[in-house]
């Protein structure tokens, strides 16, 4: 059993709280991604599991035991660093074999394991070379090899793909997913790139300012962001936000914002029924912003905007609109090309409005 | 239990650091102590470890009996001139080796480096004769001119210049910069760390010189701190406190600079100036 549990873990550096009362369980054999902006504490959390730092409060649990006081080398974890941290003066073989040597594994067994790992990663021909002679991608695989060869209970990866160029990154992503399926070991993967997180993780844990914002599978996090931060962090282009007020009009709950009146979808109207007169921040993803071509709909349920910039993506276009003091970004199909300065009217898909409390930023249900 | 072990570990580490630091600093400490002792106590046995009756007068006496101010001025002028001279000559030479293409460049560079193979002490006799013939004995020229060029400085600066991106050179050329302007306004400002490290070590080396100033200066007015202090070695034991006071005064500027610039010193070295 190699699950990892953060049990009310807090870590401070001087006055700065790097990890704030983190409660998170990584299931056995799961591929969990820790996602968040730079400096949010995700790398610190990873290092706490590795044993490179000690928590100020709370417990780190690996499997069944509390490992707070267990040294890094005795935790049976392997870590792949962002810059790979390969020993530049050792050959690829020696780099991979290092951990086994430290654990006094017999030479024959060592040799066997190193060759197995090298084969798995396509490094068989590079064993005599030094890291300085390898490309970035090859170095990364050596770092992986070093991690795999010890058959650890947990793999810790700290932004291992960020030093690779775009194409290699995509390729390596797929290889890592395959590798995980092959090895069946728990993986905690840290990244600031949401695309990586969404494509790789069975579950994604989003962290900001040391605190866990939300954890769930990628679809869930995308469709039901738990607060403003998650809503704005996940999804590209980012979600649009409109400060609004909920009012009752003609017996229907509507949201007044940006000079327009948007009716709520049925489900939401029911859920937020008791909040008439309250203020809320409405979040709408760019793909749920619709063009109101003929103005057929209720004239007040639309937003009058002017086209600001158009970015053509080929299969779709990302259009930035401006209205008074707001900007709206929409993803529209590329059928009709829009020009700068054009005046249009926008609608919001009522089934896809997210409501957030303006004070706490939390999702309003 | 773990907490306790951790604190004990810390205590041990600090104890070792303190002990070793104490041993290293000990001669300096004793010198300061001795400089403040009265002449009766300085020859006492067992030796006094703390100046309970500090004789601040000793410093005044030291300055009166020994022309320390003059010595220090000479050392300062000599070291400053040498450092500035070295920075100028090595920056110019390094620029030529890094940016100019001319026939015999490799040969001349090797020639420069070969000077590193010749220890100063080997050339000391003929150099003395040269200075003598030029009539430069007992002058600032004698103390400074032979040291105005440095192959090590040229080498290090050239290495650093080579790391400056080609785009800067191209941009400067488009903006109409000639070589001198490029050197002065672009290259040198980017080489501040290396220049600073060279300046510091050059100054230290110049300040520390012993054999050469011994040879080329005879007049008290031209002697440097090293030679001036050395002449105090033969004094009687009971005036040791004055000797120590003179030593403290001479060491003071450097010690203060060290305390203030310790971190820059280490950083200047890690700025690639001394890799391999």
């Amino acid at each position: 059993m190699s699950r990892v549990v953060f049990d009310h873990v807090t870590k401070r550096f001087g006055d700065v709280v790097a990890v704030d009362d983190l409660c998170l369980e990584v299931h056995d054999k799961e591929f969990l991604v820790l996602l968040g902006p730079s400096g949010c504490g995700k790398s610190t959390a990873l290092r706490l599991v590795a044993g490179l730092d000690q928590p100020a409060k709370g417990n780190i649990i690996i499997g069944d035991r509390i490992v707070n006081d267990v040294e890094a080398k005795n935790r049976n974890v392997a870590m792949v660093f962002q810059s790979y941290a390969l020993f530049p003066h050792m050959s690829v073989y020696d780099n991979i074999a290092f951990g086994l040597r430290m654990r006094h594994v017999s030479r024959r067994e060592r040799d066997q394991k190193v060759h197995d790992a090298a084969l798995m990663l396509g490094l068989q021909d590079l064993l005599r070379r030094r890291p300085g002679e390898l490309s970035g991608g090859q170095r990364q695989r050596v770092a992986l090899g070093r991690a795999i060869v010890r058959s650890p209970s947990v793999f810790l990866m700290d932004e291992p793909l960020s030093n690779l160029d775009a194409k290699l990154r995509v390729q390596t992503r797929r290889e890592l997913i395959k590798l995980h399926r092959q090895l069946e070991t728990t993986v905690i993967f840290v990244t600031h790139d949401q695309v990586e997180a969404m494509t790789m993780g069975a579950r994604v844990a989003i962290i900001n300012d040391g605190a866990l914002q939300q954890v769930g599978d990628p679809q869930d996090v995308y469709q039901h962001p738990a607060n403003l931060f998650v809503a704005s962090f996940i999804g590209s282009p980012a979600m649009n936000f409109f400060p609004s007020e909920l009012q009752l009009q003609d017996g229907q709950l509507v949201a007044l914002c940006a000079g327009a009146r948007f009716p709520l979808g049925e489900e939401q109207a029911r859920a937020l029924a008791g909040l008439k007169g309250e203020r809320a921040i409405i979040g709408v993803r760019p793909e749920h912003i619709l063009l109101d071509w003929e103005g057929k709909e209720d004239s007040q349920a639309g937003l009058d905007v002017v086209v600001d910039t158009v970015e053509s993506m080929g299969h779709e276009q990302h259009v930035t609109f401006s209205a008074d003091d707001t900007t709206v970004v929409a993803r529209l199909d590329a059928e009709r090309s829009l020009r700068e300065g054009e005046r249009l009217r926008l609608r919001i898909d009522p089934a896809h409005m997210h409501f957030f409390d303006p004070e706490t930023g939390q999702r309003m249900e | 239990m773990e907490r306790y072990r951790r604190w004990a570990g810390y205590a041990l580490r600090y104890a070792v650091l303190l002990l070793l630091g104490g041993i290293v600093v000990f001669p300096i400490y004793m010198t300061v102590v001795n400089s403040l002792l009265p002449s009766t106590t300085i020859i006492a046995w067992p030796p006094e470890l703390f100046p309970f009756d500090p004789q601040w007068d000793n410093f005044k006496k030291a300055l009166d009996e020994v022309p320390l101010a003059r010595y220090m001025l000479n050392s300062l002028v000599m070291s400053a001139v040498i450092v500035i001279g070295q920075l100028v000559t090595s920056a110019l030479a390094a620029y030529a080796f890094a940016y100019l293409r001319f026939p015999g460049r490799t040969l001349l560079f090797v020639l420069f480096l070969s000077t590193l193979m010749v220890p100063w002490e080997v050339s000391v006799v003929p150099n003395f004769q040269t200075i003598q013939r030029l009539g430069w004995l007992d002058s600032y020229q004698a103390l400074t001119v032979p040291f105005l060029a440095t192959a090590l400085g040229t080498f290090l600066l050239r290495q650093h210049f080579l790391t400056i991106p080609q785009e800067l050179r191209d941009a400067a050329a488009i903006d109409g910069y000639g070589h001198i302007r490029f050197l002065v306004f672009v290259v040198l400002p980017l080489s501040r760390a290396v220049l600073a490290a060279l300046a510091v070590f050059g100054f230290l080396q110049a300040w520390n010189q012993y054999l050469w100033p011994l040879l080329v200066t005879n007049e008290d007015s031209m002697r440097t701190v090293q030679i001036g202090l050395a002449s105090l070695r033969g004094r009687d034991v009971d005036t040791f406190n004055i000797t120590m006071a003179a030593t403290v005064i001479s060491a003071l500027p450097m010690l203060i600079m060290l305390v203030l610039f310790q971190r820059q010193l280490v950083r200047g070295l890690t700025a690639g100036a001394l890799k391999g």
Partner: protein
Amino acid sequence: MDAANATADQRLPLMAAARRLPQRLRGINRLGFALIFLVPSLVIFSAFVFYPLFKAVYLGFYETDPFGNQGDFVGLDQYRSVLTSESFRHSLWVTFLFALYTVPPGILLGLALALLANQKLPGISVFRVMFSSTVATSVAVASLMWLTLLNPSVGLLNYFLVEIGQPRIDWLNNLDWALPAVSATTVWLNLGLAFIVILAGLQAIPEELYESARVEGAGSLSVFWHVTLPMLSPTLFFVSVVGTILAFQSFGQIHILTRGGPLDATTVIVYSIWQDAFQRFDYGVASVQAVGLFLLVLGLTAVQLRFLERRVFYQ
């Protein structure tokens, strides 16, 4: 090539003009221009490094009269007689011992202190200043400081000896202890600089390498042997080569502490050269020794480069 440089050349008239000259003249023109940058250094080097080297060899071929004037030409005879003389071999031995007493201990101590000062403890800068403090003392200052400590009647070293029941030692006048005493002073004098250089080398080692080793299961000793030492090898090599060269050039502390005595026990080669040249005015003999020193340093450096550099790892 020309298209890119065209604009540049419009603004650098000298270079543009040079480009229009025929090939060979262009080369000379470029050399001439470069020489402007090189002349200051070249003049100094020629006058004070190259010329004296040849002059020293030349002086060795001539006897010198008691007044310091050049005497008869004796060719290689003087070289032979001086380099095989008892006194030269003695000073060679003293110099060798001196280097042995100062360079390896200097490196080991510098390494030990640097390792200790590389820890992330609060207030570690204080200790770094303490360890590097000898950098602020110069040859004369350090020698005078130790002169007091080594003083037979009032020095602290003898006080410690007496406290543990041993007889006092007149360190600097004792045939067995003079050289070690001078060596100790030298090690102390150079400790600050060695410490700073090695510490800089240590700090250049990426933290991640240590962490990676720890996670892989390396204990402190293994980390030192497999990570620290290899990564530090260029620095240690540098300190070793430079340290040896400097050891062979030592003069100041010997001149102040022992004047080469007692009975030439601390007469290193440079001191012998100084004595012959500036006390006995025998420039011929002195020059031969100087050339000998030159060849010795050259040889030693070559040996170190050959044997030690193999174990150095460069990135």
